[in-house]
């Protein structure tokens, strides 16, 4: 189409000393429909893989307009670029749905977080061996992670700017969630950065990030009552598909939405005493079963922790507890406009437990976002758990006289 082919100013350019803004422009150019500058090992451009075309993606720009009413969000350019980046992720991964989850600030760079439901997961080898302690004895079994359900129902990807490379976060373990509750930390923006805390966190920054995302999602991601429906007469506990979208949801008015009883938790809650959504019983030791429980039958173990009941699904948010030790409610709700026509008014819920978590709704639409530091509001200064009591100093070994060879010899003789 251009008649001056010779003067055409095509991307890529190959300046060895390219300034950083050029690197950025090159990274985002393909997003905007420009040619990709990625080259394979042979120096040839990588042919474009076939793209996933079947996925759900919300209208991010339109949702951003609702968030603007709540006072949260980025510029329209950035929002558009986020949309492109999220779409790009969905096209290159086998995702059946993607959603812009939000943004977590870091001290050096930030994380843009995308929540996905993947169509398939790469097969993983089961760890067959019984884990053992250092001394070779069978290890106390750890609370196992929830595979593709519960806290790992979604897969999360992060990038440091829209257009940058997406990195998949690892699955979260119950131990990471439990420890995530005890520590408070600014993220740096480096997924592999060590997390130095007390108690020691089992993992690096990406694990802590994933743990906080799981907690935020479980606690703050809401939908209007009636949007989801709990189907089936006698739903099996925890069965997938039990909760589904209500096709007949007709939307709510702003007046109705401005009521905490009209909003419910979309996701399962995480148990207080276990970093899972469902309680897990340690199996009775098998191989050692011969030795018979000293204290009687299985049901009467007094040391056994009683199972924690998960919170009811789709619980309304007015039941959420206030911030401990304060009168601050879990949610602040408000109609964000006094001047618009009623039917165009957006209702916003702001989480006071996780500042930065917002839910907005208008008519039939609603959306959730988190933009913050990944830090829970506790209502009191952080008090690190005390380290365990210092171990009593080992008694000095009684000094013994090193036996002379003759003595040793004599002792051997005597034996």
């Amino acid at each position: 189409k251009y008649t001056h082919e010779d003067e055409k100013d095509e991307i890529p350019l190959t300046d060895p000393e390219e300034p950083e803004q050029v690197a950025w422009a090159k990274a985002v150019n393909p997003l905007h429909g420009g040619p990709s500058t990625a080259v394979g090992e042979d120096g040839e451009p990588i042919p474009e893989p076939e793209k996933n075309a079947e996925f759900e993606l919300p209208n991010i720009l339109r949702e951003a307009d609702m968030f603007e009413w709540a006072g949260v969000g980025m510029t329209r350019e950035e929002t558009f670029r986020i949309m492109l980046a999220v779409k790009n992720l969905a096209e290159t991964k086998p995702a059946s749905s993607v959603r812009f989850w939000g943004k977590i600030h870091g001290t050096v760079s930030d994380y843009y977080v995308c929540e996905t439901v993947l169509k398939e997961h790469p097969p993983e080898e089961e760890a067959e061996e019984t884990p053992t302690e250092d001394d070779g004895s069978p290890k106390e079994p750890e609370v196992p992670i929830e595979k593709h359900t519960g806290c790992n129902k979604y897969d999360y990807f992060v990038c440091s700017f829209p257009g940058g490379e997406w990195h998949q976060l690892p699955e979260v373990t119950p131990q990471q969630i439990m420890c995530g509750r005890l520590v408070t930390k600014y993220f740096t923006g480096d997924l592999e950065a060590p997390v130095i805390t007390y108690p020691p966190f089992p993992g690096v920054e990406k694990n802590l990030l994933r743990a906080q995302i799981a907690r935020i999602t479980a606690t703050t991601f809401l939908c209007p009552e009636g949007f989801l429906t709990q189907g089936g007469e006698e739903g099996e506990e925890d069965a997938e598909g039990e909760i589904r979208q209500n096709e007949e949801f007709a939307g709510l008015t702003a007046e109705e939405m401005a009521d905490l009883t009209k909003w419910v938790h979309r996701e399962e809650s995480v148990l207080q005493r276990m970093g899972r959504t469902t309680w897990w019983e340690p199996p009775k030791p098998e191989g050692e079963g011969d030795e018979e429980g000293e204290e009687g039958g299985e049901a009467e173990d007094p040391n056994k922790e009683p199972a924690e009941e998960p919170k009811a699904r789709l619980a309304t948010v007015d039941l959420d507890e206030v911030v401990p030790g304060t009168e601050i409610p879990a949610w602040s709700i408000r109609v964000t406009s006094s001047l618009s026509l009623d039917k165009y008014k957006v209702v916003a819920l702001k989480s006071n437990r996780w500042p930065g978590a917002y839910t907005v709704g208008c008519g039939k639409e609603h959306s959730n976002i988190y933009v913050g530091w990944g830090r829970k509001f506790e209502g009191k200064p952080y008090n690190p758990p005390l380290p365990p009591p210092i171990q009593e100093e080992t008694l000095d070994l009684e000094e013994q006289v090193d036996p002379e060879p003759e003595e040793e010899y004599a002792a051997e003789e005597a034996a």
Partner: protein
Amino acid sequence: MDSDNLYSSLNYISALGVTLSPEQRGALQASLPLLKINHKFTNLVFWGRVYAEREDYLVAQGWDKSAINEERQSFYSQNGITWGKLPPLKGKLINEYPDLQGMFTGDPSKRLYEAPPPAEGEEAPPPAEGEEAPVDENYLTEEDRLAYTVMIIDKDTCVVPRGAYIHNSKHEVVPNKLFSGLSEKDAMKLESYYHLGEPERLKAKPLMDRELLDKTIDFLDPLSEDGPYGCWSLQTDPAKSLVTLKNLLWPGYLFFYNISTRTHGQVYMGHGERNVDIAFML
């Protein structure tokens, strides 16, 4: 952020992920010019927003001659249209009751603390002749806390690029018309940004060090000496045209500096609580 230019400035604070609603922006555009004229300010800025349980507080600051934060007057509004002046600081009571923690409620008249009645025998001396007894000095309201919070945030932040302000011959701190911007390299350094407030650490420096400074420019405390170490997060946008400084002691504070246009500004959009846990978090 300059009130004449609110919308452009809001784009710059996108890095914080916060904004104002169309209704709030519209209200500010309509009410801030009146506030400015009414008080004969030469400058009026939108200072920020303090989140509350119910209605958030919007804060604006105006000044006439000297731009230094101690000379600024602060106003607040909850609807963006009607502005009230923040009351003078009740320093004595705040010292008595330093536990100004927790979320703002959104009710400015809420009483947070009442001074205990003076004990017998310790009664306040009757006011001297001609003097009136100080009024309102026996309790603290949320409005008082807001005034205190704005002051203390300003003390810890209120950032300007090095050279953007000068000390003129009338001892006023005014914008430097000859400010030619920071170089791209300097813009990435914390040393290039100053607190636009009465310097504290500067005075404590040895005379010899002070001798080396350019007196018309280096009359302010630089951010690089702030503690704790790491309390400022300096980032640039991926296109390397915008530098932002977030304060980790006051999450919600953002300063921005546009390298190509030399535009700079700042805003605070937070809960009005200092992060007392910062030492554990870095």
